């Protein structure tokens, strides 16, 4: 039984300007212990898909539809509210972009971590604190005792993100979902945090989903990749295939536009135009008006994800023919 099963997931938000179609017909699976990168720009639907899986979207404004939405066998679509809390943090944990904003500013780090343990395990407070301390040591936190008695504003971004990782992993979840975990950090700290996440995944055998806009991050950390654009999956493959032989024109353009790959001052390959308007997504391929290869068919017809070999699928009419 796969750890994550998402089938035909669509998410829309009601806004004053109309329905925002954030995710359209997304399917993906993750086996136990595997790692997956979801790559996309802002508005591609990459974060919303996983927030929908954990049912963390605001119920008043978000509409979630799917034929299957399962996490470690639990049907998240029908899971009652009080059982959801038992899944979150225990089966699946999340870490976010801005570690400073991820902690309640009014509580000490120790309180916020022990609270997580006590939410899922029937242990004493001192036992919970013991677990917190050993977890902080495991994420290579410098001076863990001082960190425990500190408030969030007293720590640096890098230390807070380590504390955040410790909090996410303290209940030994089966999967860690990291949503842009290094974007807000300094460059030298970014590499350390990525390495730490990779190490912990190896040690614990948990699954990992890395949500990012940065192809460099996935190149360093995951095995499989889903490329999203305009709320849809464009390409699904292994990280090795993506960097060696991307098929979708969007994936190709994205890889080619990364600055600093070769020596020397030079102009970059740019992708013309802007991302599609989520209020009125185009009828055909969402990338068609920025795509060099697009023709009349791409404007009208929505391409479906088409398999090429066991590990590669692409949603592009031009690649099929």
């Amino acid at each position: 039984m796969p750890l994550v099963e998402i089938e035909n997931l669509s998410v829309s938000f009601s806004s004053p300007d109309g329905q925002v179609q954030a995710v359209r017909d997304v399917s993906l699976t993750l086996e136990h212990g595997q790692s997956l990168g979801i790559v996309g720009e802002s508005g591609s639907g990459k974060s919303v898909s996983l927030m929908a899986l954990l049912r963390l979207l605001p119920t008043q404004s978000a509409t979630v539809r799917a034929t299957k939405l399962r996490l470690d066998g639990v049907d998240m679509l029908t899971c009652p509210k009080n059982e959801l809390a038992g899944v979150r943090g225990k089966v699946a944990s999340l870490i976010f972009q801005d570690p400073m904003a991820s902690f309640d500013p009014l509580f000490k780090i120790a309180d916020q971590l022990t609270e997580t343990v006590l939410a899922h395990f029937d242990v004493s407070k001192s036992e919970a604190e013991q677990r917190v301390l050993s977890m902080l040591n495991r994420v290579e936190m410098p001076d863990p005792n001082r960190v425990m008695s500190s408030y969030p504003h007293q720590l640096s971004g890098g230390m807070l993100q380590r504390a955040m990782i410790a909090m996410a992993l303290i209940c030994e979840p089966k999967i860690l979902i990291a949503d842009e975990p290094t974007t807000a950090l300094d460059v030298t700290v970014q590499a350390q945090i990525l390495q730490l996440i990779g190490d912990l995944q190896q040690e614990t055998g948990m699954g990992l989903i890395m949500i990012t806009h940065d192809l460099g991050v996935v190149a360093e950390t995951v095995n499989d990749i889903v490329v999203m654009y305009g709320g849809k999956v464009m390409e699904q493959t292994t990280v090795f295939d993506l960097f060696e032989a991307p098929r979708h024109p969007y994936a190709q353009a994205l890889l080619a536009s990364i600055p600093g790959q070769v020596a020397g001052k030079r102009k970059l390959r740019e992708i013309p135009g802007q991302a599609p308007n989520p209020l009125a997504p185009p009828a055909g391929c969402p990338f068609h008006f920025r795509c060099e290869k697009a023709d009349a068919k791409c404007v009208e017809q929505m391409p479906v994800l088409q398999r090429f070999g066991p590990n590669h699928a692409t949603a592009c009419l031009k690649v099929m023919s």
Partner: protein
Amino acid sequence: MIGYIVRRLLSISVTFVVVSILVFVMMHAIPGGPFDATEMPVSEAVRAKIMAQYGLDQPLYMQYLKYMWGVLHFDFGVPFQSPGETVIELLSRAWIPSLVLGGAGVLIGAPLGIILGLCAALNRNSWIDYLASALATLGLTIPVFVISMLLILVFAVWLGWLPASGWGSPESWILPIIAYAAIPLATYARYTRSAMLDTLNKPFVTVLRAKGLSERDVIFKHVLRNSAIPMVTVFLPMFIGTATGSIFVEAMFRVPGLGAYFVSSIESRDYPLEMALVLIITLMFCVAYFLADIAYALLNPRIRLGGK
């Protein structure tokens, strides 16, 4: 933290002195005086004697210093309009209806408003949210004398259940208190709702839910406490403001409270009474702001412990 308290105390004391000087100067700068010929047709010699008796012939700064020296000994002087008693005696008599009206208005309006605001924020876009928003908007936009008139019309004139004015029996208290409670109810509901929504939209609330905390813990342990910080800083001074600002309601229901004296002290240039009222209200605001600052610091570790 001690440094913070000392700094706040100092700045509030300075505010208090500056306000007292400003009011004193402005009071005397307005043309006319309490014993002008139009008010009191007596000979110049007699007027000069009266002026000297009240110290009004001295330079303004002397008058100010003398008055403030008295204030330090709880001597606010003698009101010109009622020379048979001291300002303190007059105020302690007139204060009671105002305090009952203002206090009851706030004590009823504020908790109801906070509860309404909480329910609205926690059930966003539901009927209770719309009801709260509608009530808040009505309470803020309809002037209090219109509310008072409506209440008098319905409950006193049409239904005849309650007296239309006066302050004699407890049933005459009901309508003014309801009218006055409308203001804190509306403002507190509105502010509570926005402070709560502000917190609920913070990323750490998503983290709390994502780590598997029950919704009850998320709200009662974290969200309420975070929302309380902006709430106390606004509510404490607001509390004083509403508890002292019932002049219109007092006028509508003919309540013999401070409001009437405040207005008449300005009209009749009753300097000691006017000054005493302003100073007492300023002092109450200063204390409220000071308490709000302390509460803010106690709730917020960033202030309590100092930044990085």
